[in-house]
């Protein structure tokens, strides 16, 4: 009986996993080009999720702070870049002008991107210094503080930017799509976002593994008190990590605002995505964030297309696929794939 109770969920999950793989193989055999496109959708979505979740997990790994305002920083970054672009580069007098805008040069994309990323980093640093620094270790209280900040941010963003859904323009000189095999695929998604995610992943890996700062961060993850006793200014390291983590949220906001859109409600959506990614991958783990993002992106992408069974259309229920993914991981590993006890 006990064996059944312990192994039962795993058997069910294994059967479920095999069924999903078989289903996808059948779909791939039926329409190779569609399947490839859906897979690319999933991978590029995963790239965006990785950039969001990397900042989230970096902050948690070092400081044990669950930054519930991460989704707000993401959306605020998108809005900042959008406003900067419309004000500085398209000569528009109104904040939200309709219709196609003027030509956007490469600088017209990158200056707002850098501006928004940097400002969001500063906003995150401000939140950490004002609200989180002095109650280090009270992780539940810190989470509630960031929840309160996210509510204020969400409401203020609706007040200032309205309920209209906008998107940031990529440089006009860039191609809108490129030819992959037999079909055309959006250039920005597959080259810029995927490239940015890979580059950020590589840079973070080098930062954590090869630099003095990374060495201090890794030591801080293991034993903050000892690190502090060794004479390292831990507060400075915390501030630096929070700045970088928030910057990643802002950068992801600009990329997501170009790839998809900026609009109200996306803060909650990306907070949920970041939470799922780190719940799957394990809090505080960068490889975990990469794997979690890939799993979530693919599951979301496949479930919006392939939940047709004959005439029964279940794509409305796609959110349940992500839910099952979370349950499946938590049933086997309560701390996520790469998680380890605090």
């Amino acid at each position, binding site marked *: 009986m006990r064996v059944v109770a312990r192994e039962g969920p795993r058997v069910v999950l294994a059967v479920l996993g095999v069924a999903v793989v078989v289903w996808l193989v059948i779909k791939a055999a039926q329409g190779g080009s569609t399947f490839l496109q859906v897979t690319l959708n999933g991978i590029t979505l995963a790239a965006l999720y990785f950039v969001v979740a990397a900042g989230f997990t970096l902050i948690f790994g070092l400081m044990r702070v669950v930054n519930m305002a991460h989704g707000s920083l993401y959306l605020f970054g998108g809005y900042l870049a959008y406003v900067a672009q419309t004000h500085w580069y398209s000569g528009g007098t109104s904040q939200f002008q309709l219709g196609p805008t003027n030509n956007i040069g490469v600088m017209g994309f990158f200056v707002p991107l850098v501006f928004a990323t940097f400002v969001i980093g500063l906003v995150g640093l401000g939140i950490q210094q004002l609200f989180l620094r002095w109650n280090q270790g*009270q*992780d*539940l*209280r810190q989470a509630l503080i960031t*929840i309160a900040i996210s*509510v204020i941010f969400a409401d*203020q963003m609706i007040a200032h930017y309205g309920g209209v859904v906008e998107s940031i323009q990529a440089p006009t000189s860039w191609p809108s799509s490129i030819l992959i095999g037999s079909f055309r695929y959006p250039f920005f998604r597959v080259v810029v976002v995927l490239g940015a995610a890979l580059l950020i992943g590589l840079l973070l890996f080098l930062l954590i593994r090869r630099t003095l700062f990374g060495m201090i961060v890794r030591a801080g993850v293991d034993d903050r008190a000892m690190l502090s006793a060794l004479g390292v200014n831990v507060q400075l390291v915390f501030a630096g990590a929070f700045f970088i983590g928030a910057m990643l949220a802002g950068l992801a906001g600009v990329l997501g605002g170009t790839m998809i859109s900026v609009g109200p409600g996306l803060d909650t959506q990306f907070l949920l995505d970041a*939470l799922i990614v780190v719940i799957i991958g394990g809090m505080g783990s960068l490889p975990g964030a990469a794997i979690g993002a890939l799993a979530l992106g693919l599951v979301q992408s496949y479930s919006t297309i392939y939940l047709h069974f004959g005439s029964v259309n279940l794509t409305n*229920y796609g959110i349940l696929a992500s839910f099952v993914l979370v349950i499946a991981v938590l049933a086997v590993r309560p701390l996520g794939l790469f998680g380890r006890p605090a």
Partner: protein
Amino acid sequence: MSAVANAAAAKRSGPDAVTIGGWALLAVVGVVLLIAPAIFDSYWVSQILTQALWLGIAAVSLTFLNRYGGMVSLAQVAIYGVAGFAMANVVHTLNSEGGLNLGWTPWLGVAFGIGVAVLVGLLFGAIASRSYGIYFLMITLALSLFVFYFFGQVTQLSGFGGVRSVSRPGLVGDTITHPTPLYYVCLGCSVAVYALLRYVVRTPFGVALQGVRDDPERMRSLGYNVPLHRTLAFTLGAFVAAIAGILSVWFDTQISPGSIDITQTIAVLIIAVIGGLSRLEGAWLGAIAYAVINYYARQHTPTLGLWLNPGRFATIIGIVFLLIVLLSPDGLIGIGGKIRRAIGRRYGGGGARPAESEEAGAGEQAEVPAAAGTPASGTRGGLNQRRA
């Protein structure tokens, strides 16, 4: 001393013991609530008191889970949404606006809604019960958002318009013309829920649950099934939240994904925190404070450009919540305790009854000086527990 005995000792003399003054206060509040429809105008009864009572039931499910199970759950609003949507879909809706409109009788719908919500609560509890502290908070927030997006995307059950004009049983009737019946229904449910929770925490299950809260490792080694206790407590919390969900649909006559979004999740959290997470009564106190702030903020908020105006209710609630978490994590009841301690310190100390928080903390946190001078007291149910 085992964790169970610890909790049992705390039960006899601890924070749950109601003093004579407490009984007197309870009696006064009870009488005022009973005759409220006669002394307040109907707007106050329907919009503030009735709303506060059902919001209090939703919040008390969270207070119970935190106070006795050590679980800060953000899934309570999602669960009451499940109950509300389940009922709204199966009962008759007047103009067939949204939902399945199966035409069941209202009471059958109530039973179905609560049943579905309890099953969902059991599932959610089983998923989250092996996580603690901040992980539990994160997982329950994710579950809550899943429910929100589920009802937003599944157009057969809701869609973004939600289910409108949900029919109510004859007992409740039309709340626009006669708000009093729903008020008494909410009052009765509140008293029943309060009595149920007070009873449960005194049963062997409730005492074991408090042992699990204090020291899961020790309880496990004593042979208790720790995840099972947490799961069952979560399911009980789901049952309470489901009652609030049914009442909320009767109150609003409709339910949409907007009524269970993250702002509402946080509103219920705020209510529980404003009232103080360490006492069950605090939930209703917080709910009244919330309903009053809600009412006056929408009318009397000064306008500061786009930053602040009567439409920015969420900003005000966020700032209030931020201030409470920053200044007094024990909420209004915590502020009361602080004042009592300050008075006690000033006038000889020994005379004043020590605040409940220190008594509760005496078991495990003996190393924390129980002196009144500590700025943030080591409240068992509060939010300022440090990680072990």
